[in-house]
């Protein structure tokens, strides 16, 4: 029996007066993946933000490796790409790279962004910006990846490339939590249905 690295016990979150998450619990083992499914408004994004520590929990608890301190262990990809239009793709990743000490080049290479590395990000298409946001995950070096619709607007070849990245991350013991309505290359992921 592998001990789970991520444990969530009866998570409850309110948004305004509405209880969006009602005692949700799950565990994810090393190298594991959890796919969040459910209709719009079911609380998938809220759950990801809560696990990231961006949204305050109104009940329940979260443990990662037995500790409730998540700072610096999480890479989050939300609906927004967090790309600065005035900076080049490489410069956009350099903040994450300086913190993790990982190189930017291979991440850009993996998502076929290397030819665009010298252009300001405002010249990129929506799908290319999304790929840049995916590349930031590789640079982050965080063990827990939280992905909210990660492949929205991304072409099939890049989804396949992202599948390779996800497989590499999990093979290295990383964890993935993803919310999506599109097919994601996450073999044998556990499914959690919300709403």
């Amino acid at each position, binding site marked *: 029996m592998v001990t789970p690295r991520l444990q969530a016990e009866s998570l409850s979150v309110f948004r305004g007066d509405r209880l969006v998450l009602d005692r949700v619990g799950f565990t994810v083992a090393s190298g594991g993946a959890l796919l969040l499914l459910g209709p719009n408004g079911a609380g998938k994004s809220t759950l990801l933000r809560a696990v*990231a*520590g*961006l*949204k*305050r929990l109104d009940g329940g608890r979260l443990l990662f490796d037995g500790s409730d301190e998540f*700072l*610096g262990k*999480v*890479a*989050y990809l*939300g*609906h*927004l*790409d*967090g*790309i*600065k239009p*005035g*900076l080049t793709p490489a*410069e956009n990743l*350099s*903040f*994450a790279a*300086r*913190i993790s000490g990982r190189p930017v080049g291979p991440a850009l290479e993996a998502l076929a962004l290397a030819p665009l590395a010298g252009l300001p990000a405002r010249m990129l298409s929506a799908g290319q910006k999304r790929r840049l946001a995916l590349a*930031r995950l590789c640079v982050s070096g965080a063990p827990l990846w939280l992905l909210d619709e990660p492949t929205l607007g991304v072409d099939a070849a890049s989804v396949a490339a992202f599948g390779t990245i996800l497989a590499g991350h999990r093979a290295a013991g990383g964890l993935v939590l993803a919310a999506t309505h599109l097919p994601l290359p996450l073999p044998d992921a556990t499914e959690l249905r919300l709403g």
Partner: protein
Amino acid sequence: MKAFAALLAREIRLAARHGGDTFGALLFFFVAGALFPLAIGPSPQVLANTAPGIVWVCALLAALLPLDRLFGADFEDGSLDHLLLSGLPASLVALGKAVSHWLVTGVPLLVAAVPLAVMLHLPNALLPALLGGLLMGTAVLSLLGTACAAIVLGARRGGVLLPVLVLPLTTPVLIFGAAAVASEPRANLLLLGAYLAACLPLCPVAAGAALRGAID
């Protein structure tokens, strides 16, 4: 420490790439300062007496200009989430923002204050007291401004709310800063330093809590 340095590098690179924001504040400082002689008359004696006050008020208002976008841009494009997940506590993210605001806006204003003061006939002997006060005063402005910018983040019409929130808090800076030039530089500069010493730990903590609230 490494993350803090990375944050500063990021902020300065962004400021360099969008130089218009910094330059805009400086230009505002000069133009606003140049309006006073037109309004109160060109008499060198009157100008010399009012110069410290003019420079201080213009610096205060110019430092307000970039505050609106200090967190606003990062909040809107999602980068604020990434900053807060970078491993730095929210209060240190806020401190990094305050330091970058000071480096990018406060220091250029400090330099630009010299020609403006000379233009307004401030006696050269009073320049050190003016600049000493501005050195600390601009730092206080950056700290208070960062805290208030974080507090109004996500509020509708935050841009209007921001000056109303910041300016009352900066009255001690204005009083001690302008008084340091007029009389008793030592005592007034020490009081200014005390205000800075209080703001340095309190503002980032308040700003950090406000940032957490804004993204919640």
